[in-house]
């Protein structure tokens, strides 16, 4: 019989590296007991801070958590973001390894990845590749995520909230099968970081809104030419909420939004994109068409996340 260890050296090496990656990752994966049946997973994201999938945490206080070292503790909710389905929990006093994050720039389609979860006392893993990287993806709850990872691997019960790691065990993202109706997906670590920052700071994620409902309309070619527009579509304001930032700025039903921050608007999501890229203290600069005349209107978005 041939010597197996010699003939299979690459395979054995790969296998051993994958197991070590899971070992590394498991040091920062906790089990969260906040729903019936199977517990969900969470990642120790920073010192004393755990991130998980919000839909798997059905309660808000005294949440039992199993730590990687076998200890049990309780966590409190620091905040939830329904739009990205993330929840941030705090644990006090318990020492745990903070997850090692991978460099976002290393992320490519075809990268070997492992999903690591703790659907009980022990850690469990599945293996596959990054099958696609979606740019500018919008969750069904309306959050815009710059990049989302579609995965060719199996996400088992209790894996949501666990980590997606590379072959070295560094965290690439957070697995969540609820983001897209059960399809295996992960939020990249950078996107998680942004949400964690906001949730720790103010308990919710700032979602700027101006209080208008819009629908696409076609502009006549003559108007488009007169205003020097590259597109002949814009957004018609069909309602303005009372007391909203848009009402305060003097926007009326029937106005047509042509541009936001210099970017042409042709679909409602374009307006959402412009809003989400507007910083806290900044105003949204709108070009509004009223009675055939274009005028510039500045609107100070308010924060809907605090409702």
């Amino acid at each position, binding site marked *: 019989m041939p010597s197996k260890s010699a003939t299979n050296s690459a395979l054995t090496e790969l296998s051993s590296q994958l197991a070590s990656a899971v070992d590394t990752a498991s040091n920062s994966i906790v089990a969260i007991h906040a729903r019936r049946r199977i517990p969900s997973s969470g990642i120790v994201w920073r010192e004393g801070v755990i991130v998980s999938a919000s839909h798997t945490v059905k309660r808000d206080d005294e949440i039992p958590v199993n730590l990687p070292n076998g200890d049990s503790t309780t966590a409190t909710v620091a905040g939830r973001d329904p739009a990205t389905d993330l929840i941030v929990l705090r644990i006090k006093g318990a020492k745990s390894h903070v997850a090692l994050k991978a460099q976002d720039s290393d992320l490519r389609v075809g990268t070997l990845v492992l999903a690591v979860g703790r659907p009980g006392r022990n850690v469990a893993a*599945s293996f596959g590749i990054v099958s696609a990287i979606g740019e500018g993806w919008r969750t069904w709850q309306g959050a815009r995520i710059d990049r989302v990872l579609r995965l060719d691997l199996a996400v088992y019960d209790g894996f949501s909230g666990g980590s997606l790691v590379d072959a070295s065990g560094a965290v690439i993202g957070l697995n969540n099968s609820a983001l897209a109706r059960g399809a295996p997906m992960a939020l990249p670590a950078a996107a998680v970081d942004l949400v964690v920052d906001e949730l720790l700071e103010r308990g919710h994620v700032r979602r700027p809104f101006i209080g208008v409902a819009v629908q696409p309309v076609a502009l006549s070619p003559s108007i488009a030419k007169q205003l020097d527009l590259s597109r002949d579509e814009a957004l018609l304001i069909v309602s303005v909420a009372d007391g909203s930032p848009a009402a305060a700025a003097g926007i009326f039903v029937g106005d047509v939004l042509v541009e936001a921050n210099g970017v042409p608007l042709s679909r409602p999501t374009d307006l959402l994109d412009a809003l989400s890229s507007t910083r806290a203290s900044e105003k949204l600069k709108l070009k509004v068409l009223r009675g055939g005349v274009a005028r510039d209107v500045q609107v100070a978005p308010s924060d809907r996340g605090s409702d």
Partner: protein
Amino acid sequence: MNASTLGTARAVSSNLHGLSEMLKRTVVEVRNGEMGGGTGIIWGGAGLVVTNAHCVQRGADLQVGGDGKWRAADALAYHPHHDLALLASPTVSGPLLEIRDADSLRPGELVFAHGHPLGVNDALAMGVLHGVTRDERDGYVRWVIADVRLAPGNSGGPLVDAEGRLVGINSMVVNGLGVAVPAALVQRFVERALARRAA
């Protein structure tokens, strides 16, 4: 960097082929009468084959096949609780797989299932070890759980590690996960069955 990565991928791919060729010589197809069957593992040179008890209907006409030939087989012992059966078919022989101790298994390490799923002969499936479940009373490993795609026909076939050592016998699929009887339990079953016959 790219060249060395590609080199690794090629080496892994070539290792996989070698593993598949090695496993081909250690498995047979198990058929019982008109009923479906499964996969069996050749247990050394003495004409012994181990498979799942649920692949072997009691009283049915048993046959084991490989290389396009079918040979009659007899059931020597059953262990329904562990879903194991030991068959004898004197002219069957092949290399005996080395046993991998379940206590040394690490979640995330590569595992491979070999068998005849859905009538496809000698199919190799790759996955990673998910974990093991232990008996609550004695702490022994009761099942080996793997993230590997199994189908009907994989039953009774080997789950091996990257070095081709036997991790367990694929027995069922639960919540999409492959569930295998640990190799050490299989070995104990065979030893006891043979001891009983010798006595």
